[in-house]
């Protein structure tokens, strides 16, 4: 494959060593491709190497702390660079009916990337947003690592390649119209799929789709629309699938009607990852109403039936002997002891200055989305077809092929729109299981995990500890050391190879796997002298994944609590202290925004308090100011089968994430992150007892509900002059976690040692039985109408 570069190639901008600083650049030309096809098909290389050839976080100035890896080379850069050697082309097609279509090689689970991609194409081509049809691409193994939706990377990695292709399409259409109308191309305007000449006459895209087509593949230079001409990018845009959603038409995996793919549910072990040994009554269950098949598979006993209700009845009736699971007999405290034993020592001994030590524990949390793990599979002797919401469909197709004994080329993986992911759908547990079930049963299956499965056996955010030691002298922080120790997070195949490829190229790193992600994402944003951050992980065979980030929410919670303590030790206001010690003006910009809008320092009643948090990641900066009410009347308010407790009454959140494609979508992502932060700090965790997680329901696992969510929320998008977008999907959490924790500590006068703060409270529920593994559906629903 040709090595595609700038046209013309340009020399590298002079850079300050280690800072990633580069001079501003003028309008460039890019290389796109015309593809031989009956109608106009254009393409661009799906990497950004020809566009952004330097780490672009333009943070200057030598600092007492020295640069940490994420300041010069972060996770987004790694995800981009992982694609470089293997990148292939993405293509935009202009169809005979004048519509423009694009298959996005990413997974949309509600984050709005279909809408933002429509906006990017519409912008370059002068179209209305709804004139662009964007679908999710099937697995494309030739894209290698370039079909992974994670690390908040989608917009950062796709923005420019998509623009290049769209701009080329527009150029070709204008050229074709110029010939047809016999007018100079520079006098033509293109709006809404209609190209109009200055001296009259117009021609629609539909009449140009074939005329603009290319007979041969060729490289073409193209310039992109200058930012000052943007009419769509940066303007609020509603989600383009919203009407389908509010009318019930949006189709998720289990809504698909695939012939003969009958509902299938797996009977799972009481232990986490337990496996079936023997089934006592398989024939009896096969004879139950509606049930078509019952077969043993590697993770349990699969029951296929005419309805999910009957499949669940079958699961409940099974009598199975189980082998022990992977953490048989373990509980929270035994796991915590292993994590603590792995904590790395501090480098600077206590007593160098005035020493402050903090230690925090973060318990397991569930990444279960509202759509449970589910997939449809139709496995035949010579081929397999699988449907599901998958953020890493290439890896999925490889593992499915392995599971059913077919070559990867015989496996087709369709990416459906997902009902939430938050990281969980980086893995594809249901897709591999569905394929195995279909093969063993010999029929198509529509496999769905029940809520109890999803909560107890599904992937979790790992338990972790974070220890921090700071040494201060007068008004100076001499050293700041953070040691994060965690149950191992599975990053392979979800991230593994993409990251290891990129991380070893990081200027300051020679790291592997999850340590790389930690090193690439975590930065201490304050001038705290000698600053070290280390991660150590203990592999205990849990099913783990990121959950709107892996480390940041925990690391930031610990860090922001420590910052408040250092400020207190120096007798300084938490806002003034942060302002003085943050490294850059861009950071101070968001902090100032929340302090002003949220009225930092206003008088608060006893038992209520404000708190601040700050975080930098994803080429962006964010700050939160939270107000919390910890007065007894609030904490003790009673709601049936619910956790109430301290109420966050107001959140002011500011974000500068570079170029914003869709501010309304960005605000939505921040809102979701903020509500996640409430859950992580105040209400929701999993409890490991005797080798299994206790929680089996949304009334056991207390994700944020209407009665928890802040009555006031103000999200401020700070103007940024950055010429590229950063990452948004996970960015709302970390700063908010820090702010809630510091507000809580101030309100109650005590710094918590573990999170969520209710983890050791008595259960406000009766745990569901382990056998059978799925609770029976109630029959009294008509007694609860309103």
């Amino acid at each position: 494959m040709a090595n595609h570069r700038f046209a013309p190639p340009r020399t590298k901008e002079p850079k300050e060593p280690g800072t990633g600083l580069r001079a501003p650049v003028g309008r460039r030309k890019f290389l796109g491709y015309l593809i031989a096809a009956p109608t106009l098909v254009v393409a661009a290389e799906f990497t950004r190497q020809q566009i952004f050839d330097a780490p672009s976080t333009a943070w200057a100035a030598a600092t007492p702390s020295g640069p940490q890896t994420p300041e010069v080379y972060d996770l987004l850069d790694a995800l981009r660079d992982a694609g470089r050697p293997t990148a292939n082309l993405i293509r935009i097609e202009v169809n005979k009916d004048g519509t423009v279509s694009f298959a996005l090689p990413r997974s949309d689970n509600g984050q709005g990337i279909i809408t933002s991609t429509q906006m990017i194409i519409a912008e370059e081509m002068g179209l209305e947003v709804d004139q662009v049809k964007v679908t999710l691409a099937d697995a494309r193994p030739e894209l290698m690592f370039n079909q992974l939706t994670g690390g908040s990377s989608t917009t950062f990695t796709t923005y420019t390649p998509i623009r290049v292709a769209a701009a080329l399409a527009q150029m070709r259409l204008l050229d074709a119209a110029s010939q047809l109308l016999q007018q100079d191309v520079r006098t033509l305007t293109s709006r809404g799929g209609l190209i109009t000449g200055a001296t009259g006459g117009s021609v629609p895209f539909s009449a140009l789709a074939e005329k603009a087509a290319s007979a041969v593949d060729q490289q073409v230079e193209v310039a992109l629309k200058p930012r000052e001409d943007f009419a769509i990018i940066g303007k609020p845009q509603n989600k383009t699938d919203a009407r389908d959603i509010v009318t019930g038409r949006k189709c998720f995996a289990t809504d698909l009607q695939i012939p003969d793919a009958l509902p299938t549910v797996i009977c799972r072990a009481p232990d986490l990852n337990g496996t079936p040994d023997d089934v006592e009554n398989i024939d009896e269950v096969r004879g139950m109403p509606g049930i078509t098949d019952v077969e043993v598979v590697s993770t349990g006993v699969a029951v296929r039936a005419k309805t999910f209700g009957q499949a669940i009845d079958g699961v409940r009736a099974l009598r199975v002997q189980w082998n022990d699971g992977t953490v048989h007999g373990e509980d929270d405290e035994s796991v915590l002891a292993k994590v603590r034993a792995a904590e790395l020592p501090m480098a600077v001994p206590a007593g160098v200055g005035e020493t402050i030590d903090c230690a925090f524990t973060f318990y397991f949390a569930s990444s279960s989305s509202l759509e449970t793990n589910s997939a449809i599979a139709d496995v035949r002797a010579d081929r397999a077809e699988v449907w599901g919401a998958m953020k890493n469909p290439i890896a999925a197709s490889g593992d499915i092929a392995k599971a059913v004994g077919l070559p990867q080329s015989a496996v087709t993986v369709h990416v459906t729109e997902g009902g939430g992911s938050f990281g969980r759908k980086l893995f594809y547990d249901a897709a591999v299981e569905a394929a195995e079930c279909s093969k063993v049963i010999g029929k198509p299956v529509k496999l769905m995990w029940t809520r109890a499965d999803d909560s107890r056996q599904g992937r979790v955010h790992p338990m972790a500890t974070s220890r921090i030691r700071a040494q201060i002298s007068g008004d100076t922080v001499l050293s700041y050391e953070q040691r994060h120790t965690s149950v191992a997070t599975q990053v392979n195949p979800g991230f593994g190879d993409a990251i290891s490829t990129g991380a070893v190229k990081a200027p300051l790193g020679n790291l592997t796997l999850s340590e790389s992600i930690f090193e690439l994402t975590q930065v201490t944003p304050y001038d705290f002298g000698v600053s070290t951050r280390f991660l150590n992980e203990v592999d205990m065979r849990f099913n783990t994944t990121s959950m709107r980030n892996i480390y940041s929410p925990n690391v930031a919670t610990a860090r922001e609590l420590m910052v408040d303590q250092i400020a207190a030790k120096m007798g300084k206001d938490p806002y003034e202290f942060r302002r003085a010690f943050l490294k850059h003006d861009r950071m101070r910009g968001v902090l100032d925004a929340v302090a002003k809008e949220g009225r930092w320092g206003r008088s608060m009643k006893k038992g209520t308090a404000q708190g601040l948090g700050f975080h930098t990641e994803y080429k962006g900066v964010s700050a939160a100011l939270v107000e919390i009410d910890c007065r007894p009347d609030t904490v003790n308010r009673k709601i049936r089968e619910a956790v109430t407790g301290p109420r966050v009454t107001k959140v002011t959140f500011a974000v500068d994430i570079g170029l914003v494609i869709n501010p309304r979508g960005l605000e939505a992502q921040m809102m979701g992150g903020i509500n996640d932060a409430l859950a992580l700090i105040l209400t929701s965790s999993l409890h490991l007892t005797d080798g299994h997680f206790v929680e089996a329901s949304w009334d056991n696992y207390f994700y944020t509900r209407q009665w928890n969510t802040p009555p006031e929320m103000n999200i401020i998008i700070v103007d940024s002059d950055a010429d590229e977008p950063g990452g948004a999907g996970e960015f709302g959490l970390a700063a908010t976690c820090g702010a809630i924790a510091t507000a809580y500590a101030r309100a109650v006068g005590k710094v918590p040692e573990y999170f969520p703060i209710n983890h050791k409270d008595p259960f406000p529920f009766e745990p569901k039985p382990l056998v059978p593994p799925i609770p029976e559906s109630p029959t009294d629903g008509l007694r609860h109408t309103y």
Partner: protein
Amino acid sequence: MPTHTFTLNGERVTVDVEDDVRLLWVIRDMLGITGPKYGCGINVCKACTCHINGKAFNPCSVPVGAIHESDEITTIEGLADGDDLHPMQQAWLDRDVPQCGYCQPGQIMAAVAKVRQCQREGRDLDDAAIEEIRNICRCGTYQRIREAIKAGADNM
């Protein structure tokens, strides 16, 4: 096998299935109406919220045998009047409420019923009333849901 007849989104439907199969699965797996979502199966998450004779209920927790011939079941698909959206659906669009959208059919059906309940009982549709709604949104779009409920109620 028992036969069950009722009205679903204005149409008379008849199914042959055991009495104890929960209505959610009759609607989704047998009748192919997939707006009501499975989220827990135990009347907790409320993703399957529909209306029975105008009131909110959760078909995951109602055996089909408990449904009478005279019962009118409405799913999200039956809320709009043809192409004319219900005011609550329109409010949802105006405020760009949905993210992934999986819980949203249930949220909208719950919101409509909560507004009607408040109107019936002469109560204000205030924050306290909205906080009686137990539907989970794991994407966390709660603030926009609150705004949309109030805006939708103004046009109901």
